C-alpha cells in the first residue's frame, strides 16, 4: 500500500512516498531506494508529506542505506513529514543520522 515515485527535478531527484510503509510494503521502498542509488545521482529529496505511517521495517530500510549514502557521497534530505511519522524517526534517533526538514524549500537548501 505504498507508492514510491522518482522524478528528476533540476539537479536532484525527487522521490515521493505515498501511503503506508509496513513490513510488506517496505520491500517496495527498499527497491526504490536501491534503484535511486544505482542511478548514479548524488542528490535526492524525499517527499514524505503523503507518508501516512511507517513501521519499524520501513525505518529499517532507511537505516540500512545510511552507510551507503555516506560511502557513495550521496546527499539525501527528507521533508514534509507529518508529526506522527517525524516522531517515529526521532524516537529511534534516525533524525540524528538523516537530514530531515519541514518544507521543500528548506530541504532544497539543505542539499
Amino acid at each position, binding site marked *: 500500500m505504498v507508492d514510491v515515485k522518482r522524478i528528476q527535478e533540476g539537479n536532484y531527484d525527487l522521490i515521493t512516498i505515498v501511503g503506508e510503509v509496513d*513490513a510488506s510494503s*517496505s520491500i517496495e521502498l*527498499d527497491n526504490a531506494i536501491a534503484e535511486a542509488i544505482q542511478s548514479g545521482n548524488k542528490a535526492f529529496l524525499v517527499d514524505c508529506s503523503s507518508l501516512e505511517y511507517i513501521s*519499524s*521495517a520501513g*525505518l*529499517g*530500510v532507511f*537505516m*540500512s542505506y*545510511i*552507510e551507503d549514502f555516506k560511502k557513495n557521497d550521496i546527499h539525501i534530505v527528507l521533508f514534509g513529514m507529518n508529526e*506522527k511519522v517525524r516522531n517515529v524517526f526521532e*524516537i*529511534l*534517533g*534516525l533524525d*540524528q*543520522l538523516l537530514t530531515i526538514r519541514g518544507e521543500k524549500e528548506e530541504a532544497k537548501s539543505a542539499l
Partner: protein
Amino acid sequence: MVSLFSFCKDRIYYLQGDLKMISRKAIIRLSTLLAILSWVSLVFTDLSIVFSSTSNVAPSVGSHIPPILLSVFIISIFLYYKYRIEKAESINFVDLLWKVFVSGLVATIVSLLFRLLLNLLGNTKLAENVIFLDFIYLINLGLVAGFLVSTFIVWKRLILYQKSKFLLATWKIFEYGLFLSLLYNLLDIPAFTWFEDVYKGILVLIGVVLSANMKWVAFLNFKQKWKGILLIALAMFYLGYFTFTLTGFAVDISEVTTSFQDFRDSIFLIAIMSFIFVYSLFSLLVILFNLPTSSVFEQKLEEVVNFQRLSQSIQTEQSEDRVYDILLESSISTVLADAAWIEEIAEDGKSLFHTHNIQEDEIKRIKAHFVANDVKGILDKGSDRTKNLGKHLATLKGTHFRSMMAFPIYVKGKQEATLALLKDVSDGFNKENAKIIDTFTNQAGISVENFRLLSEALQNERYKEELKIAKNVQSSLLPKELDQNDDFNLVAFSEAADEVGGDYYDTLKIDEHQTAIIISDVSGKGTSAAFHMSQMKGVFHSLAQVGMDPKSFLTMANNALSKCLDKASFITTSYFVINTKKKVVDFARAGHCPTLYYDSKIKEWQFFQNKGLGLGILRNSGFENYIQLNSFTYNPDDIIVLYTDGITEAKNSKGDEYGYDRMLEVVSKMTDKGALGIQDALIDDLYKFTGTPVIDDDYTTLIIKFK
C-alpha cells in the same frame, strides 16, 4: 412320479439354498460329481430302456427316469458353469469367448473320436447295434449339453453387461422359462404338442429380444474384434456340427425304437440352441459392422483417458514439468501428430522446450519463419487455431511439416507456455482436434495453477509451523519471575501477536543494592525477530552482571549486535540500573519509546525526552555520541511506566492509534494504585480501545512503583 419330482425339486432347492454357505470350490466339486453321476445313470437307464424295447422285454426302469436324469445333469452343469464363469470376477470379453471356444473344442474332439471309432467299425454288427448307437448318442448329448450351458452362461454375462432393470427382468423371465421347460420335460404329457410349440416359440422369441443387447462389442478394440469374430464363428460351427451329429443319431435310433431319450423332445435344448445360435449370429454381424468404426471409438476412449491423466496429474505429479510432459504425450496421441513441442515461456526470455520428434533449432527456424513472414494468430494470441498453415510452412526449407496448430497455456490469466502440434500432411488437423486440444491445454493450465496453489499451501503450512516454534522460543525467553526489591514493586505484561514479534524485557540483580532492568523491541517479525531477541537476552545477561553504567552497556551491546543483526534490523532498548542504596536510577535510551515517569514530589507525569539511537543502526564507531546517560533520584510512590510501540501504535477499527495521550490519561488516574493496578487499568483500557482480542504487534509493559 410325484415323489420323484418333489425329490428332485427338493434336491435342487437344497443345492441352491444351502450352497450359499458352502464355498465356491465346494459347489464346483459337488456339481461336477452330480453331473457325472446323473449322466452315468442316464446312460444306464436309457440303454436299458432301449434294450428292453428292442428285445421286447418289460423295462426294469420307467421311461420317465431318463428325462429326470437329463434335467438333473443339465442343472448340475449349469451350477458348475455358473460358479466357474458367472461368478469369476473381471474376465474380459475375449477371455469369455475363449472359454466358449475351448469347451466347444473339447466337446468336438471327443465327439469326433467316437465318430472315428464308428467309422473304423464300418458295417460290423456292433456299428449297427442300436444300443451302441444310443451310447454314442448319449455321449454326444452330454457334450452338447455342457457346451450349450457354458455358452449360455457366457452369453448371459455379455448380455447383462451394463444392464438395465428391464433387461435384468427379461433375462430372469427367460431363465425361469428355461428352468420350467426342464421341469415340463419330466411331466411327460405328450398330448399337448401345440402347447410345446407355443412354449418353444415364446422362449425363442425372448431369446431373440435379448440378443439385441451387445453393448460389450463397443468396448473391444480392433484386434479384440477380430478375435471375437473368429471365436464366435467357431462356436457357431460347433453348434452346427453338434446339431447335425445329434440329429443324425436320433434319426438312426428312432428308426429302431422311439423310447430313447430324444433331444428333439426337449424344449429346453431346442430353446437354448436357437438362442445361442441367434446371439452368435447377431454378435458376429454386429462386430463385423463395427470393425471399421472401432478406431474412432478407441480414439475417443484414448481422449477420455488422456484427459483423466491430465487432471489426475494435479495430485500425483511432483512438478510442473511433468504436467507439460503429460500434456505433450496426450495431445500427440489424441490427434496423431507427427511432432510437437511445448515452450515454457520464462521471465528472462530463455524458454524451456519439451519436444517430440523435433529439434530445438528446427523450432527456432519455424518460429523465425513465422515472424519473418508476419504470420499472425499462430504462436501469438489468435482465435482460429486451425488456420491453414500449409502455404506458410511450404515456403520454409528444411522442414517437412505441412500443417500446424498452436495453443497458449494460461495460468491465472497469464500465458505461461505454448503448445504446438505438427503434421507432415497439409490440412492435417480439423476443428474437432482443435477443440479437444483446447480442452487439454485448459486443463493443463488448471493443473499447473493447482499445483502452484498446493505448493504455496505447503509452504504456508511450513511457515506456520516455524512461527509456532518461534513463538515458543520467544515466550521462553521472557523471565518467569522478576527481581523484586524492598524499595520497589515491579510487574510486567506481555502479549505476543499472532505473528511473532520481538518484545523483550528482563531484570537482573547485579548486587545487593543494584538491579538492572531492560525493555527491548526487535524490529521486524517472525523467526528472525525471535532470533534477534534471544541475542539481546544473551547480551543483557552477559553485560549487565558486570555492573556497567547504562551508556556503556548500550554502546557495548551495539558493538556486539552490529555483528549479528541483518542489514535492515535494529533493536530499540531502554536500560535502567536502580541503586537502592543511593536511591538513584541511572538510565539510557537506544531508540526505544520514551519512558513515562511519575514524580510523586511534584505530582506530575512526564515523558523523558532524552536522546538516543537504536541498537544496530550505526554499526561502526561513533554510536556512543548518540546516547545520553541520565539519572534521577527517586522517592517513594514514584512510578516508571515502560512499554513498547505495539501499545502506542495499537489501532481501533477506525484506524486511530492508541497513542501517548490516552496512555497518559489512564495511568495518571491510577497514581495512588499499586504497580499491578496500573498495569491492569492500562491493558484493560487498551483492549477496550481496540475492541478486539486480535493484536497486530506485541503488547508489552513493565511498571515499577517505588516504596
